[in-house]
């Protein structure tokens, strides 16, 4: 009888401890952007990208940040611009990211445009994948 009570108490303790495991709750919000630039031009394309986004910094002051990237994309190739886990950057509460793209080659091809990505705050995940063909 004593062994049975001991076994029951040990099982109860183990189950209570297991049920308090915090890993059950650690689903985090996510905001990421993957932009794929696909070159269908006959010539090599040069890409200039400027990414701007804003949010609250660690002093709770709204600030902007700007990233610059340059790519060389051969005919038929792709290039990727990947902004991973924007919520985990140096800003919090980022809701809008704008990417200004400038494409040109040594011949006559030249395009300049902006793409905007807005995260929906009530959604836990906002993952954008965009393929831009030119």
């Amino acid at each position, binding site marked *: 009888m004593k062994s049975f009570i001991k076994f029951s108490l040990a099982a109860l303790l183990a189950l209570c401890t297991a049920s308090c495991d915090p890993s059950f709750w650690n689903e985090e919000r996510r905001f990421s952007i993957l932009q794929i630039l696909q070159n269908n031009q006959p010539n090599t394309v040069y890409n200039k990208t400027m990414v701007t986004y804003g949010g609250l910094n660690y002093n709770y002051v709204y600030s902007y940040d700007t990233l610059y990237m340059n790519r060389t994309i051969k005919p038929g190739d792709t290039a990727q611009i990947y902004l991973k886990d924007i919520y985990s950057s140096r800003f919090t509460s980022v809701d809008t990211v704008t990417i200004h793209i400038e494409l040109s080659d040594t011949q006559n091809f030249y395009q300049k445009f902006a793409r905007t990505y807005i995260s929906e705050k009530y959604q836990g995940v906002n993952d*954008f994948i965009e393929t831009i*063909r030119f």
Partner: protein
Amino acid sequence: MFRKFSFLLLVSALSVGCNSAFRSSHTAIRITPPVAEYLSQQTVNVHNNSSNPIVRQVEIVQQTPDSFFQIQFTKLAGHSLILEIIDSAGRIRNVAIPQSQLKAFPFLLSTTTAPVLSSGIIATRNPNVRRSRTLTGFLAISSYAAAMGIDAIAYPIVKATSKNKLYAVPRSFVLRDLRQVYTFDTSNKKSVYRVIAPINREVTPYLDANFQKRYRLILGSSAGFGLVNEFYNSNADIGLKQTPWYAIEYNVQGSPNLRWGLHHTWSQHKDFQAGITSMQVAYVHNNPNNGRFIVGIGAGSGGFKRYTADNRVDSTRSYRNRMLGPDSMVIKTAAFIPNNKYFFLPISGFVKYEQELFKQINLNVGINVTQVTSYTDYSIQEALRTTESIAPGVTAARSHVYGFPTIERNKAKNLLVQFNFGINIQLNR
């Protein structure tokens, strides 16, 4: 309704029918009309033939269906009792009455009701939610532990308070004639009271020559093909497939017409694996040609695991109750989640015919109908897909994946009809 009724019937049959606490407190001996007439004119008692005998009053009751009478008294423990008949002259006739010790299993909560209830609790388990897995496991173990605790208290109490109920006079023992029973003269105190125990002349596998209970162990295996009737409404293929099923079983038969035991059946397919373990009780109708017609029901615990299923993609032009433009659509991707283990509470019924092939070896054919629940889990992810021309010669195809994936649990009830063919071995104990 039928499912609930079957469940209650089975639980009652398993937990109450074989428990000494619920057994009759009276036993009876069948007697012929002349013996009844004689006994009605004498003083009749029953005692347990010990140094401090416990004496019971005897009552004569008329039994109408077969014109026999019976004497009835409150049960007494012991393999043999003495029927003491005292005539008007004070002379005594002592008749040995054989008693059988009743043997039956199961008779505890932890071996009958608790496994079925624990199965019911664990059937609510959602394998996708860790807290559900933990909670159902905890509740199932707790309820089983509680049943064991109740048994640990109840069993000694029932054993102590109902020890007389464990014994009964076999129905095949009949007092037909008292003329051959020697009469003792009580005035001669030196005479030795010697009572000859009766011998059972109709020995059966369930009652030996000394009127003691015997039982049969029946070990069987069978295989068959399961036809499936599915009850679900879904665009996913979530039911069971028609597959071979295999079974092994263990039964105990302590009387000509009742059999109970454990039955395990399983099916292994490349898409899924299912197994059902049931406690079962059955009525046995014996034919003169060593054949038996058996009808029974069972309940227990079933497990189901799906290995493979098709993924699927659905699309719609409606997004939050608004119609999207021609360049947009919502894509709903359903990715199958493999190897989730589910439990369910199966109810089954069976009919089979058993024919003795050789001594102690039987062939059987039958139909087993079981309710099997199958599950298919999908991880659902929605995305808004748009295509647009953003500059001359430049197009953008955007996919916005929003929200955490959700789990879609598809549950299908299948009525599995198994046509079985098998063999079993019976051992007399």
